[in-house]
């Protein structure tokens, strides 16, 4: 199979890449665009560490072919802070120590951001359901849930 030339819009920038058709979005982000904030945890969609936003919705980039998302708006963790100012979810993850090793954090944060966009005033149980596809082995989730709830109370918490 020959390489395919595709145009990707990542964090507001447009990129032209030429990759084999079976290349995943995760590989393109990490290996071609050097956006290594998106993490490689299992490569089989089990852990959620590679979650990115595609048109504002969370997807696993290891299970998404790059050619599928041509022309779509992709947001990675590097593109979340608005001109250097942290997104409210990022701020609260820092403030409440909702991070330990940090390997699940990019995917977790993006999942939470997408969720707050749809449900700006969630309950704790709704947060738990929303992030249940993103596995964290360090924190026990409590500080993550509290951080998402705290972010929902900041003006602009639902911003994507």
């Amino acid at each position, binding site marked *: 199979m020959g390489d395919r030339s595709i145009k990707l819009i990542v964090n507001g920038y447009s990129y032209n890449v030429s990759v084999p058709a079976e290349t995943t979005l995760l590989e393109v982000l990490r290996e071609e665009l050097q956006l*290594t904030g998106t993490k490689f945890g299992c490569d*089989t969609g089990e852990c959620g560490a590679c979650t990115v936003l595609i048109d504002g919705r969370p997807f696993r980039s290891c299970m998404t072919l790059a050619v599928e998302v041509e022309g779509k708006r992709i947001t990675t963790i590097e593109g979340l802070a608005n001109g250097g100012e942290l997104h409210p979810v990022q701020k609260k993850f820092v403030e409440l120590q909702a991070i*330990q090793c940090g*390997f699940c954090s990019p995917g977790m944060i993006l999942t939470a951001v997408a969720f707050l966009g749809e449900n700006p005033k969630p309950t704790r149980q709704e947060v738990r359901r929303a992030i249940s596809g993103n596995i964290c082995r360090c924190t026990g989730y409590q500080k993550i849930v509290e951080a998402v709830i705290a972010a929902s109370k900041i003006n602009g918490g639902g911003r994507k």
Partner: protein
Amino acid sequence: MTGEELLVVGKPLRRVDALDKVTGQGIYTGDLKFPDMLHAKVKRSEHAHARILRIETSEAESLPGVIRIFTSKDVPGENNVGVIVPDQPVFAEDTVRHYGDAVAMVVAESEDLVRKAVDLIKVDYDVMPGVFDPEEAMLPNSPLVHPDGKYGNEGNVLSKMGYEKGDVEKGFRDADIIVEEEYRPGYQEHAFIETERCIATSDGRNVTVYGSLQCPFYVRDAVAGALGIPRARIRIIQTAIGGAFGGKEDVPSELCARAALAAYILRRPVRKIRSREDSIVMHTKRHPMIIRHRLGATREGELVAARVEIISDQGAYCSVGKYVQKRAMVHACGAYDIPNSKVDTSFVYTNNILTGAFRGFGGPQVAVASELQMDELARRLGMDPLKLRLKNIVEKGGITAKGQNLDNCGKGLRECIEKAANVSQWDEKRDAYEKFNEKMKHSSTGTLNIRKGIGMSSIMYGVALGGPTPDSATSTCQITEDGSVIITTGGTEMGQGAKTVLSQIAAEAVGVPLHYVTILDADTSIVQNSGPSVASRITPVIGEATRRGAKEAVSEISNLACKLLGVNRVRSVIAPDGTPFSVPADAMVKKADIDKFPDKVDYHELVRSCYGEAKLLLGVGFCSTPTLLENGEYRDYYTYSFACHIAEVEVDMDTGRVMVKKLTCANDVGKAINPQTVEGQIEGGAVQGMGYGLMEELVTLNGRILNPSLVDYHIPTSLDAPQITPLIIEEHDSFGPYGAKGIGEPSLIPTPAAVLNAVGHAIGLAVRKTPASPENVWRAIRDHR
């Protein structure tokens, strides 16, 4: 301390690595790139026990882009690694002993290619009978895993360890009641989200390895051994780590030795990233144990004797098994004052996955046995489990079950138990749930057949590496011209908050705000061997070395301040704008009033003056734990920390499904250097422990792991994790920095038993093996009917 206010320690300050980690800027091993970088992957064994007849690599080698295939004959030095005994081959030579053995390694230009090439390697085996049950492995005619016995093993028994205190037979004769049961805590997989990985580079003489690793010095020694070159020519540099929990303790030794070999021979950077399947099939697991526990007590509930026999499956290689064995032996009878006790342990080679370090290091397994025994005893005596524990816990001035005089700690446990019971409303809930369950038994209406339970587990934990050898560490501190502080240690940040806590300790000792301090990633070429990042020893041991190093580095600054202020002793005050000042130690001045206070010197001026006068502002901190006593005896552990966890559960009697609703977790940490980080450790440890007690089950069949993925091996998600109330108890320790003990492991150790005891309370019978999965709980209920 003389009651002076602490500047930085004890405050819930922001993690120093937080910003990097929420913006994707943190650099993990897999994020590093080098020009001309190659990729590597191993060919794993296809049998649990077999002789290798032939390794056919020509087809794989003919793939364009495959650079070279390595096997045991390419190893220039020792083809063995092992922290305790060198029984694990870098590449299997003539025999494979479990499915995780590496037979060969492909090095190629891309990840895709290495995967393809590995499948093209053909290995001919002569399959041998294997042994998969540790008790069968101890029988005379069992197949032998290491037949030559050169690792100190007798047959398959790697090691026997035990002790006796008092007169156990007499103790049981004096007992009014004896509880005797068998417990089977199982495997646990670390399931760090970042699998093991490393990148090795070499110019053909020196070797540098970047990796996700807990113990850079273990890796250095393994690489030196495999390559047959001096340790001084090897640099191991730690990157950010995506979780470890003991699973990256000695495991990276073999991984990095193989990558270093390829880089050394090929003179190109070589990257190795384990797939999830390779990770689960190849790395150590928590030791499964068979624990036979006999406990004798008087009618009034006073413990008089304990007899514990432990048989554990070591798998194919020793790893850190003997150290786990020692910890299990010392802690086998729990945190109780038992005058007569006898413990025997056997760790046995099999052809299963090797077992090794996992947060708690034998502790959670023995706590499952000893803590379920306490509940069983309480049940038979008709006593409240809380009261039974309070009656028997070992306290300051007492003697542990193993025989250590608790002369320097022992107040924390009662405080943990009472606080956890109080906050969880133990008495009220115990009653209320029993009434609820009684009502449910006679209720025919309602859709769910639910029972509720509340259970506890209380533990002691020997902090840091055990005696007789003291546990020691070094740390260096450099104060630069602008007053900022550089700390280097051999301790690693793996998510637990080590960099934050060590920064706080260093900032406190120097007398500057937190942001003045930078902790460098561990680099074996910079610091002396500081030991491994294990055993909850970073805060107390490496932390104390860091405090001492920082104190030494700042000593000339303090001397100068004393001279300028005309006093013998100074202390630091940080002004509201963040400027640090030295003031006389006994000056009654608060930071808000520092502007108007005349007897002060700006820290930055002091630093500049010291540089002007050519003073040394570098300190090397060294410390070793007080394990040796003056009378020539030694402490098993220099001190203990304590914990009590209380779990509340709901059990569906028709399906056996358990939901943990609440965990109340009291942990004695000596001193919380950063209370928010301590809470994070407690919450995370408790949920990992809950996973072990409740849902995590590694399924093996004749040595093969049948569920090597996170889809089939279930760890807690946000929907499984309960509401947690962390409670910090502080029994000041006289050795650790600012009184701190460790928290990494005791956050996990009590939880599995607490969950199982809550299940026991709910359903009225004990589940004596982990996990309390729907199947195991349902079977316990059915077998009882």
